[in-house]
């Protein structure tokens, strides 16, 4: 059975190889091939899943050792896979949502002449992401980690002719690289501490290591997670990443890749459990990002950017939960899965809207679309209800649990975190309602563009709606399905461990509070955008709004400090290299030239001058001999 694990990765990898090297002759069948191979991977995943359900206890964990990757004295890195419940969850999410989005893309990318390449990249992403979650050691995980980074780079910049897209792609890769730096340092630390970086030994022997080392490792892992999951302070790339085609945003920048950070922290739970300081930092980062993303999401008029902000904030929830330790891991993953469903659905909905609106992304130019594209409206609406945590839908269960767990952290921390999560829930309700209202309600606000062709909003083709419907179903029922009888908790417990945190307040109270803030958020949004007509051009807005529109100025900070500073640094260094380092060399050469030129003057050709030097030489010689005598 375990030999199938490699197949999970092999299928999409093969697809990528064929599609990217295949050349134009594959253009007609390329997208089908890509989708097929993604589906194959999904099927294999399902097979493995059913097999796993058949087993029990430790038997559920499968290992597959392919070959020794980097065998060097005292350094063993293997190409080996580990499939346990945690990985399984991700496998299903990735391959499942992945396949759906492949199908969606068939319609969405219909008019793009480089569609084959697009599917090649998508397959490459699937392979890398699966490698990430299936690796049984950190180095192999690192390979997948950077692999998804590459795929995301290629897909964000898929429309390379747009400079903005190319820049966004570069930015995403670079920011991720900073995170990767953290991951590699973490691996090095593991190597010096444990002499290995395979999951088993490292996580098994955290007890013997000093807390200092573990904290350091934890913080480095967190840095990596921040990069990949767009957490403060490395969140700046996610908004720009929306330059990519919408299916990409749905798959990579909502459902799967950006959640890799959560996976990493959950996977390294043993380390964090033994390093409370690191955990605290994780929680703080999560909380901050939660609010940060939410606030940004409130201000954006670009529908995708608004959703991106929401993604950031939701992942903030997950990171926060993961930072809570055993009481939170499970719910982090659970929210991750449900979020995977509804956020993917939302993005696909947004894509569908744009598809019908000539790729217009400004929500202020939408309005009243519900009668033009009913399916999109319904699916999007379900996703909306799910994310704001409407009772009974997925978001409700997963977010509620996280809020509980936050309170259950105990002490003032618990209260603060609880408050933050509640506040986050309120803001979420607000900005999602805003999106909803701006897009589907109110009167139509779109005009013909300068070329005079007004958008004719229409429902998207079947290949796009079906995935949306399926995801909507997922976002409606997944939460409930997981929560009934704590299925999900029991499923993951053997891997991540779990103990129920006793909140200072009863679960019912928490739920009640959540409901209250939910209603408040929605109401406020309705007051602002539902009642009175929305101006097409955005009003200047308050200081906070304007800051939020600019990602709370974090980008400007980066630009001023890092980009400008870096440019100056490099330019001055180039100058230094040319004048100083090289100048020394050239100076030496020049001085030699000058000296020889001056010496040349002594050769004036007059016999008497030479005679003088001869005479003087003789004198010197005599002097020398005399001195020798004297000595």
């Amino acid at each position, binding site marked *: 059975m375990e030999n199938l694990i490699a197949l999970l990765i092999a299928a999409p990898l093969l697809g990528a190889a064929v599609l*990217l090297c295949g050349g134009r002759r594959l253009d007609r069948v390329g997208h089908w091939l890509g989708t097929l191979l993604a589906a194959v991977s999904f099927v294999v995943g399902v097979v493995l899943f059913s097999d796993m359900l058949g087993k029990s206890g430790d038997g559920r964990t499968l290992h597959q050792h392919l*070959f*020794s*990757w*980097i*065998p*060097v*004295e*005292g*350094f063993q890195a293997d*190409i080996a896979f580990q499939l346990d419940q945690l990985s399984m969850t991700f496998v299903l999410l990735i391959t499942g949502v992945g396949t759906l989005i492949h199908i969606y893309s068939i319609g969405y990318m219909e008019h793009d002449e480089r569609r084959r390449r697009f599917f090649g990249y998508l397959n490459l992403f699937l392979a890398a992401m699966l490698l990430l979650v299936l690796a049984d050691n950190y*180095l192999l995980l*690192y*390979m997948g980690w*950077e*692999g998804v980074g*590459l795929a995301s*780079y290629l897909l964000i*910049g898929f429309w*390379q*002719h747009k*400079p903005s*897209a*190319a*820049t966004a*792609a*570069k930015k995403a890769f*670079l920011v991720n*690289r*900073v995170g*990767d*730096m953290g991951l*590699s*340092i973490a*691996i*090095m630390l593991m*190597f*010096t*501490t*444990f*002499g*290995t970086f395979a999951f*088993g*030994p*490292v996580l*098994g*022997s955290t007890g*013997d*290591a*000093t807390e200092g*080392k573990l904290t350091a490792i934890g913080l480095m892992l967190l840095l990596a997670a921040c990069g990949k999951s767009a957490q403060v302070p490395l969140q700046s790339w996610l908004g720009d990443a929306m330059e990519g085609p919408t299916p990409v945003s749905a798959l990579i920048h909502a459902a799967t890749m950006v959640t890799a950070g959560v996976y990493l922290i959950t996977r390294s739970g043993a380390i964090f459990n033994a390093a409370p300081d690191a955990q605290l930092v994780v929680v703080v980062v999560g909380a901050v990002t939660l609010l940060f993303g939410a606030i940004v999401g409130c201000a954006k008029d670009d529908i995708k950017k608004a959703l991106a902000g929401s993604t950031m904030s939701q992942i903030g929830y997950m990171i926060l939960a993961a930072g809570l330790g055993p009481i939170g891991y499970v719910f982090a993953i659970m929210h991750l899965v449900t979020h995977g469903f509804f956020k993917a659905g939302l993005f696909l909905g947004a894509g569908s809207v744009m598809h019908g609106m000539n790729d217009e992304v400004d929500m202020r130019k939408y309005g009243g679309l519900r009668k033009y594209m009913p399916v999109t409206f319904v699916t999007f609406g379900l996703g909306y209800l799910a994310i704001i945590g409407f009772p009974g839908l997925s978001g409700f269960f997963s977010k509620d649990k996280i809020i509980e767990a936050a309170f259950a952290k105990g002490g003032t921390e618990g209260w603060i975190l609880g408050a933050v999560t509640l506040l986050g829930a309120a803001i979420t309700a607000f900005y999602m309602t805003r999106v909803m209202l701006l897009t589907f309600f109110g009167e139509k606000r779109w005009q013909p563009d300068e070329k005079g062709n007004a958008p004719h909003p229409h429902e998207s083709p079947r290949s796009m709606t079906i995935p949306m419907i399926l995801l909507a179903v997922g976002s409606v029922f997944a939460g409930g399905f997981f929560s009934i009888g704590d299925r999900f908790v029991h499923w993951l417990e053997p891997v991540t461990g779990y103990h129920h945190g006793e909140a200072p307040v009863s679960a019912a109270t928490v739920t009640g509070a959540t409901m209250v803030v939910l209603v408040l958020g929605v109401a406020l949004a309705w007051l602002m955008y539902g009642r009175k007509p929305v101006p097409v051009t955005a009003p200047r807005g308050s200081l906070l709004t304007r800051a939020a529109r600019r990602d709370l100025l974090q980008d400007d900070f980066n630009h001023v400090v890092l980009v400008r500073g870096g440019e100056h*640094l*490099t*330019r001055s*260094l*180039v100058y230094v*290299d040319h004048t100083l*380092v*090289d100048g020394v*060399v050239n100076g030496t050469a020049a001085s030699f030239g000058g000296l020889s030129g001056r010496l040349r003057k002594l050769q004036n050709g007059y016999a008497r001058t030479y005679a003088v030097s001869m005479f003087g030489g003789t004198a010197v010689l005599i002097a020398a001999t005399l001195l020798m005598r004297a000595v």
Partner: protein
Amino acid sequence: MSFPLLTATAVLPAVGAIATAAVPAARRSAAKWLALLFSLATLVLAAVVVVRFEPGGARYQLTESHAWISDFGVRYELGVDGIGVALLALTALLIPFVILAGWHDADPLEDVNPNRRWRPTQGFFALILMVEAMVILSFEATDVFLFYILFEAMLIPMYFLIGGFGDRAHAGGDEAAATQRSYAAVKFLLYNLVGGLIMLAAVIGLYVVAGSFSLSEIAEARASGSLSMATSTERWLFLGFFFAFAVKAPLWPLHTWLPNAMGESTAPVAVLITAVVDKVGTFAMLRFCLQLFPEASKWATPVILVLALISIVYGALLAVGQRDMKRLIAYASISHFGFIIMGIFAMTSQGQSGATLYMVNHGISTAALMLVAGFLITRRGSRLIADYGGVQKVAPVLAGTFLVGGLATLSLPGLSPFVSEFLVLVGTFSRYPVVGIIATIGIVLAALYVLVLYQRTMTGPVKAEVKGMPDLKVRELVVVAPLIALLLFLGVYPKPLTEIVNPAVEHTMSDVQQTDPKPEVEAAP
């Protein structure tokens, strides 16, 4: 005695060089094919060497030894250890691609502009083969004097390759190109000659002290204690050797010749410089500095590590600041050489294995990137990054290969440079954590300069001059595809290489009497 395999690997290209040079100018293409043929034959011989070499066996294998200048105990001594084999294979592997890539670089320039002087096409290829012969022999030499001779001799063909066959594409026009080129060539020559001079003094000094040039004899004598150098003597000799190697390598602040040399010469020659000839420097650090002067090496380690660190960061930053893509790649190479030297002097088995792998991988990756860049430059006739844009739209395959080469340069996992770079980092980190951490900054900067280069040249709206640019031709694909395949293969399955290298590294480690630092925790299985 058995067939002198090692000698053959060096003699074959030398013969090829003579034969190629002898081809009459009229039969130009014949010369090209002849050169290619000889380089391939050398590759075959090198493969035989790799096969015949037993990783577990004696330290130096396939040894040959004949008296040469008996008065000074100079012997013609050859022998390869794992490191030598790896680099020998790399050299023999790269040369055919270099020749193939430079197929038209030495054609007479009448087509470009008629009043340009005639260029000796067959001379170009003959010189390349000559360089190959010398480099291969220098990887095999186990006699210090013999090595020194080759170390110096390979400057001559390189000088003519750099100065004589410049890049057709030069921003400043032909005249400026000529002056720049001669400047670069002279600079290259002078730098390396100064280094060689100092090394010569050290070589003589070594003979005075040890009374022999034979590496094995000296190492033996030192091990048995029958030869003991005064600390100061050892240090001076070490510095003498190291300086020459640091110039060749090149290590900051002795690096300034490399950008000029690589910028002004044609892409294949640039590959020859950075991927083949410079490797002799780092290789010699491993073989001579560490083996002959272990104590001094340890003594100098802190300074050298700092210099290597500077090279890494400084080279990367300057690469970011370059406007000329070949100079950019040159500075990137400086940064990478910093990694190699750091790995060597970290004195851990991971570090040194990593460094050796790094030499090989860097050779392949730089070759890939530089050659594709060369194809690009020959198409557009400019080396300035600003003159390009949107190439990806008109020449997707070229852009793709360029991207892969770039990703290899920024050592993306899955491509071979990652393996070596990570080994170097881990090896350094385990003994000098701070140095290791600072070095990781290089990873980010590498991403920066590679992606900026790719974005400015390949993406964005298509520039007018770029329109109608042809995609890679078959010949060019034949050059690039195998390199990329190799990068992928060695990135996922570097085992064959590590198996050859590891024993040699163990020997070196025992030479310097160093053992890897132990992990704090004995991890549970």
